[in-house]
């Protein structure tokens, strides 16, 4: 091997080292994990094929059109500006908004608003141990770069973790389903992608989502339709829609 060849190869190696140091997006891992959670596994064999993706998308659009929720024309829920004063309060969804003429309460005495989510239908009850996360984005840089902001709450219902994602109504929604509301029930206390089987419900039109604020949270009164099932463990298919009422507060 000549000196010139060695010098060339050293230069190639140095160049490749520079290439490999290209910085990745700061939120790369988080987005990977979030998107894995959302991807319906039954679509998996088709997702990577161009023709199949187009075909599946067309089928999905027809299917979703047929499943247009009956409440698609529901007016947005009035803005909820208050939260329960104590744990003994009734369901947050029924908590009346103080009249505008009410005597102002000093800020120091007003408890900080908290997230509360009540479910009825396929799942019934109020989520406990709700943890809200704002400033989330579903980003895809696949040709038509796209960015849908959303907020998320994870809570517990009957010993199962339930994840609620509400997308900005003015955005496209989720990447795969164009959904603006998604509920996933994990059959365990973990929301890990492989923690066990899960079932999901989605709502496609953004009706019923109000006061979306990527920094502060969102209020909602929506009916979400049965969607896909996870294939891990004892997967089951949700049969009935569920109604989701409450707010996510960050």
């Amino acid at each position, binding site marked *: 091997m000549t000196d010139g060849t060695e010098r*060339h190869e050293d230069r190639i190696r140095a160049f490749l080292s520079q*290439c490999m140091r290209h910085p*990745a997006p700061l939120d790369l*891992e988080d987005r990977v994990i979030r998107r894995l959670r959302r991807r319906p596994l039954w679509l998996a064999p088709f997702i990577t094929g161009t023709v199949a993706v187009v075909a599946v998308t067309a089928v999905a659009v027809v299917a979703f059109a047929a499943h247009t929720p009956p409440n698609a024309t529901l007016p947005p829920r009035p803005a909820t500006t208050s939260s329960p004063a104590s744990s003994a309060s009734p369901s947050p969804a029924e908590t009346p908004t103080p009249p505008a003429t009410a005597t102002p309460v000093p800020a120091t005495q007003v408890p900080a608003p908290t997230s509360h989510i009540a479910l009825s239908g396929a799942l019934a009850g109020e989520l406990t141990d709700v943890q809200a996360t704002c400033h989330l984005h579903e980003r895809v*840089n696949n040709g*038509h770069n796209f960015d849908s902001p959303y907020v998320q709450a994870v809570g517990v219902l009957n010993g199962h973790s339930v994840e609620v994602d509400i997308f900005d109504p003015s955005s496209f929604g989720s990447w795969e389903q164009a959904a603006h509301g998604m509920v996933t029930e994990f059959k365990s206390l973990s929301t890990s992608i492989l*923690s066990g089987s899960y079932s999901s419900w989605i709502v496609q039109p953004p009706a019923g989502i109000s006061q979306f604020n990527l920094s502060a949270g969102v209020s909602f009164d929506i009916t979400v339709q049965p969607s896909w099932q996870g294939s891990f463990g004892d997967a089951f298919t949700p049969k009935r829609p569920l109604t989701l009422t409450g707010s996510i507060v960050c």
Partner: protein
Amino acid sequence: MPSSVAQASVRVDHPFEPMVRLHSRRLFAMAYAILRDPAEADDAIQEVMFRAWRAWEKTGEHADPGPWLTRICVNWCLSRRASLRIGWGRTATLDATIPAAHAAAEDPQLAAAYARLTRRQRAVVLLHYHLGYSLDECAELLGCRPGTVRSHLGRALATLREEMRDD
């Protein structure tokens, strides 16, 4: 069925999630070196991890998932067609979280020549010169004959040396 709300704070992560956090950036760099486009590299990682996730369920935990992920990543980058655009006409701002101005740090002459290589040639150069794979190992990883790898490498080097001829 567990019913104790007291267990709510116990959220156990599956080993796959730490694997995503451990390998995503390395795979991103590799995908970028082959695809030469940060947005495409970003998409590649999403797909690579999805494929790995599906396979993980069938094969179980790998003792050393690094080479396995490398294989999936390289082959995904090579099979991905540049014309594949799964969009529905949406427009939005490009993810601004990718720090800029990296390209300027690269050897500009070599970068121009490297950009003219085919993806398969880039992959062979990367695997052989940077990751230290032998030509036989490259052939196994890429699913082709060692002679084919030699051919790709020879053509790639010829292109790169054109730019380095004046050194």
